């Protein structure tokens, strides 16, 4: 059936089960769950693994809010500095919501969160054409319980790198 064909390369970014498809995007799309699969060694400060584990690839949000907390700004300041140094990388900022909301609204909310991160990074000098945003709404939780302990981690914006010399 024709509908099954023609998945664009970037579609691999979403197919979290299709990691055998070795593109430079292949860790993306899972909401940055864990460090497995990110290219490079965490001890290499120019690697995506370093960015994820030492700089911090995500910020969290208050319920139904898209404003950045002081803690988030500090993480994002680090992201901005890293991106200004490591100019080979681009990033897709994924915005997410917890499950306490309707599907369409959460798509809008996730976009607001991702965009808040993008605007901060741009304000710190990162070129806008290196940063894309996407919202997953409540479609890609990383924690699956129905308590605030999980919800707090799901209300997130994750900066997922692509490109780079080690890709």
């Amino acid at each position, binding site marked *: 059936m024709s509908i099954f064909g023609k998945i664009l390369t970037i579609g691999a970014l979403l197919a979290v*089960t299709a990691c055998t498809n070795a593109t430079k995007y292949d860790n993306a799309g899972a909401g940055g769950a864990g460090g497995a699969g990110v290219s490079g060694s965490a001890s290499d400060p120019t690697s995506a693994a370093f960015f994820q584990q030492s700089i911090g690839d995500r910020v969290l949000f208050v319920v139904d809010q898209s404003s950045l907390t002081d803690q988030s700004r500090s993480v994002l300041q680090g992201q901005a500095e890293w991106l200004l140094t490591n100019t080979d990388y681009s990033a897709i900022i994924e915005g997410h919501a917890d499950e306490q909301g309707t599907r369409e609204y959460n798509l809008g909310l996730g976009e607001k969160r991702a965009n808040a991160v993008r605007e901060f990074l741009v304000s710190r000098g990162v070129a806008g054409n290196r940063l894309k945003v996407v*919202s997953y709404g409540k479609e890609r939780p990383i924690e699956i319980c129905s308590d605030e302990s999980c919800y707090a981690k799901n209300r997130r914006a994750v900066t997922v790198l692509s490109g780079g010399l080690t890709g």
Partner: protein
Amino acid sequence: MIRLLCCILAALVAAVPLVIQPALAQQGPLRIEITEGVIEPLPFAVPGFVPDNTAATDYGKQLSQVIAADLSGTGLFREIPASAFISPITDFAAPVKYADWKAINAQALIAGAVTVSGSKLTVRFRVYDVFSGAELGNGLQFTGNTDGWRRMAHKVADAVYSRITGEGGYFDSRVAFVSEAGPKNDRRKRLAIMDYDGANVQYLSDSSTIVLAPRFSPTGDRLLYTSYETGFPRIYVLDVGKVKRRALDNTEGTMSFAPRFAPDGKTVVFSLAQGGNTDLYTMGVSSGKRTRLTSAPSIETAPSFSPDGRQIVFESDRSGSQQLYIMPTGGGEARRISFGKGRYGTPVWSPRGDLIAFTKQSKGRFHIGVMRLDGSQERLLTASFLDEGPTWAPNGRVIMFTRETQGASGRASLYSVDITGRNLRPVRTPDGASDPSWSPLQQ
């Protein structure tokens, strides 16, 4: 496509008056007023349809089973089992022995016959008001392919439902939905379509990418939906018969979602998110010409047209929390219609035009509800950890929605409920299911 031929059995029946004479028994005319809420379902009997030839034997039984399931499923009718029958119907043309059906309290009797000729199936049926001792309406006949036998059963049930309730039927309809498999943190979603009762499931996409919220066109031949196949949510239109789809909007740096058809089937209303702001737009399906309807810095989404196409109901958090608004189709000033405590989302205009169905969040619970167009007479029909996304049956009397259970093993499934809040029922699906869209009655 199955073509059902329908003709009145004029030659076989004397003209029967449509007005039911008052019954001699204590019961009044055979009539259910749905809006008044039925406490006691109306007992009916539907004996196996009489086979005119051996090839028709199995169909005779199966047809009556599907008709009985349709009627019982409404909560308005109660089937009297065949074991209680005094005089089984063996000849469709013979006079009905009303006394034998009255004795087992069958207020309605549906009798039918079925003929199979090659791949053609012909179904004839009559409905009787037992206590009035008269036929209700005229006999009808449907002809179609044998593989469409379930549709013929649904057509019979629709006719019975219509004659007794005075409302349009909804059994010969389909539901598009998202089939879900896998745990919450690795959910795989596929577009699917099925008969309203869960039979004949067909998948319209694979699970390689996220798909959301299919929405039927006014004639049921196309679906709008949202897919992440480019890496970003975008709206698509899919031809159901050919399983062919194309992107409607592909603007770099934006996301589009929450599409719905206008009643003319030529225009789509949807949400477009860009730069941290989600607004509503319309677009010509053929022309691709886009018109912006809202420009507030808040989230405007989940739009739905009025049946006359002149207004759009949608949700917005412009007041600080999600609420429902109605505006003219061309955009312009919107009036807020929801004022209760809590958050209101996913409004859907009833096909009858009289009510708005919605999702309400209040005190950590989710509800499906209905309200009038001015927000009055709000009525919550359900309550659970997570109910959302109502869709209307073609007759505007039943609502289907998604219910998701709580916790790490949480699972989504479909339920239906009638607009009086009675008859909450799970809808059978092979896997998890969400985002139902009820088709119009099939042609």
